[in-house]
């Protein structure tokens, strides 16, 4: 039986899933990237190798997330896709007929509008991370409660306080103010959830037509308080898919399967890459005042890829001579 790997290398976490021919998730894995994407991918593969049953042969591998190009070189990916497309693919496959995808991760948040199974519109946060998971993380840490309990405590609120949601700096000072006034913890947490949802809908979701079914995914979907706040504000039911936290990786795996169906073979290098030594180095190109910091990946003394140059002199010199997309 064939299995397909999806690898989502994000800034905070690296997620790996294994799906079967019918898009069923057989295994999923969450690793903190901790600024070492290569290590994270290798560790993940090592782990999956140990758990995979003998009948499954890897038929394809896809990568996504901000580290997708790096990961694709290490594992030999069949498809390399941006996280917006990957999330949309996973959502429309796991929840047929979905029309709106709300996605909030650690550092970014996005909304994807699908019509007839196709992405019709999307938006992603640009200059500000106020409406994202890291904001909640910080506030939970400030209030000294574990992030896992955040949502449940918020649900106990009788009268959520109003907290400015536009900017996390304002929100924090507002929150401190409310605390000093003597509001109880559940009310403040529920207020924070409302603020985050308001911020998200005003910034990311502005002008978008939010139609049912609405699904909510990404790490923050674990927070039941946010789900309730979305339902209250939008007045519709919000579905949280089973694998809400690894949807990007699921999408990457599905895309890999489809890519392999077209090409017939996979370029997966095998689990052996977990032991291979990859060396990432960078140098400053001094040919023009842009002073690009070119990154290169070496394996076994051979340069496999270079990127991050503005003019394309280094990245075009080696590597794939094909259209990226």
């Amino acid at each position: 039986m064939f299995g397909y790997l999806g690898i989502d290398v994000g800034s905070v976490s690296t997620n790996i899933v294994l799906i079967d021919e019918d898009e069923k998730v057989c295994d999923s894995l969450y690793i903190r990237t901790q600024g070492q994407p290569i290590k994270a991918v290798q560790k993940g593969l090592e782990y999956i190798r140990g758990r995979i049953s003998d009948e499954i042969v890897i038929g394809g591998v896809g990568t996504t997330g901000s580290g997708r190009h790096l990961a694709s070189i290490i594992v030999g990916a069949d498809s390399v896709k941006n996280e917006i497309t990957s999330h949309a693919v996973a959502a429309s496959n796991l929840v047929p007929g979905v029309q709106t995808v709300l996605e909030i991760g650690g550092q970014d948040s996005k909304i994807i509008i699908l019509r007839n199974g196709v992405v019709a519109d999307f938006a992603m946060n640009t200059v500000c991370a106020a409406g994202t998971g890291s904001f909640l993380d910080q506030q939970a840490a400030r209030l000294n409660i574990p992030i896992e309990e955040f949502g449940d405590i918020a649900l106990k609120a009788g009268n959520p306080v109003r907290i400015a949601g536009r900017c996390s700096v304002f929100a924090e000072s507002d929150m401190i103010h409310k605390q000093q006034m003597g509001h109880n913890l559940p009310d403040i947490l529920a207020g924070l959830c409302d603020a985050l949802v308001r911020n998200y809908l005003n910034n990311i979701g502005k002008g978008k037509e939010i139609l049912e079914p609405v699904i909510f995914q990404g790490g923050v979907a674990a927070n039941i308080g946010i789900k309730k706040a979305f339902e209250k504000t939008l007045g519709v039911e919000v579905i949280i898919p089973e694998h809400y936290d690894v949807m990007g990786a699921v999408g990457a795996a599905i895309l890999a399967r489809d890519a392999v169906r077209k090409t017939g073979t996979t370029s997966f290098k095998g689990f052996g890459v977990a032991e291979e030594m990859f060396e990432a180095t960078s140098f400053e190109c001094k040919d023009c005042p842009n002073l690009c910091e070119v990154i290169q990946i070496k394996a076994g003394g051979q340069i496999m890829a270079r990127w991050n140059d503005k003019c394309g002199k280094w990245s075009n010199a080696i590597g794939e001579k094909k259209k990226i997309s």
Partner: protein
Amino acid sequence: MKVTFPHMGNMYICLKALLTSLGVEVVVPPMPSQKTLTLGTQHSPEFACLPLKINMGNFIEAYEQGADTILMAGGIGPCRFGYYAQVEREILEDMGLKMNMVVLEPPQKHLSELLINIRKVTGNRSWVDIVRAIRFAWYKARAVDEVEEILHRIRPREFEPGSADAVYKKALKWIDDAPDRKELKKAVEAARLELDAIPIDREREVVRIGIVGEIYVMLEPFVNLEVERQLGRLGVEVERSIYLSEWINDHLFMGLLNIKGSKEARKLAPPYVNHFVGGHGQETIGSTVLFANRKYDGVIQVQPFTCMPEIVAESIIPTVSRDLGIPTFCLIVDEHSGDAGVLTRLEAFVDLLERKKEKSAVPESTEKKGEQVCLDI
């Protein structure tokens, strides 16, 4: 007197031609780079938009190379750009850099206003010489645009990414070096031959995207993070709503020459925008309509962060998009923009368009209801 000017895409080629053929010594500032941006942001008000910061960087770098006079464009209307020449002069003065600033305001009544301003730099050259020099500069602008249009066609179809860009780079140099019209013609011809010789995939179904928005960001590749090249690599054919020669005709020649310009775009802006909103806000809307009418697959609006006219347009574009069924995407640039994030969004937008295009090409009946469709790569 050593004259310099701010960069805006390939405009340096025309300005250099204009001034050198009048015997003025020219200092072309180094092409905008990270250094330009760093210098510019260091010496500009934080809340100003990116064009002012790049201008400042250009001037400082040109000063380092000995320039003492600046030829700067002015402007009218609610866009802040009209005030930038004055602000920049003050900043340079505060920095203790001694530079003269000659501001070319768009002529209000008669073309002679422009000529008088140009004469401030050229001294006592005869009017005939000046007019001849302007014409030569104009032909250079046309030459650049001609080559660029071919580039836009080749780029998404070439088998080996980067080959068209390599020729384009050379072609710009040929055009820039051409001393007279005869050589200029030869340069364009050579560029055309070499570009056409690049092996391309004629069968390839390309997505077509129109680029609209703020003129400076549209024309200056360093500022727009080379959006055209990035899209080209993703297999997208791009067309800008305005090219250099059209801008020159619109703004400096009062639209006297009979070429495509912003008039058509302005005409199409109502009922969405019925009057001038500053900068190119009205044209942005009109051009979006135009691209939709011409059956483009999508439109990308580019703007510098905090650009008022484009913010007006940005809030109206969703209505146009809904009415005419053309997907749109807005790219806002500022000094921080890392290109990885931009590329992710561009990729996703192109995916959306490709998928939509494929879907409209396949008759509906082939898709069973309820069957899941997967985004293709």
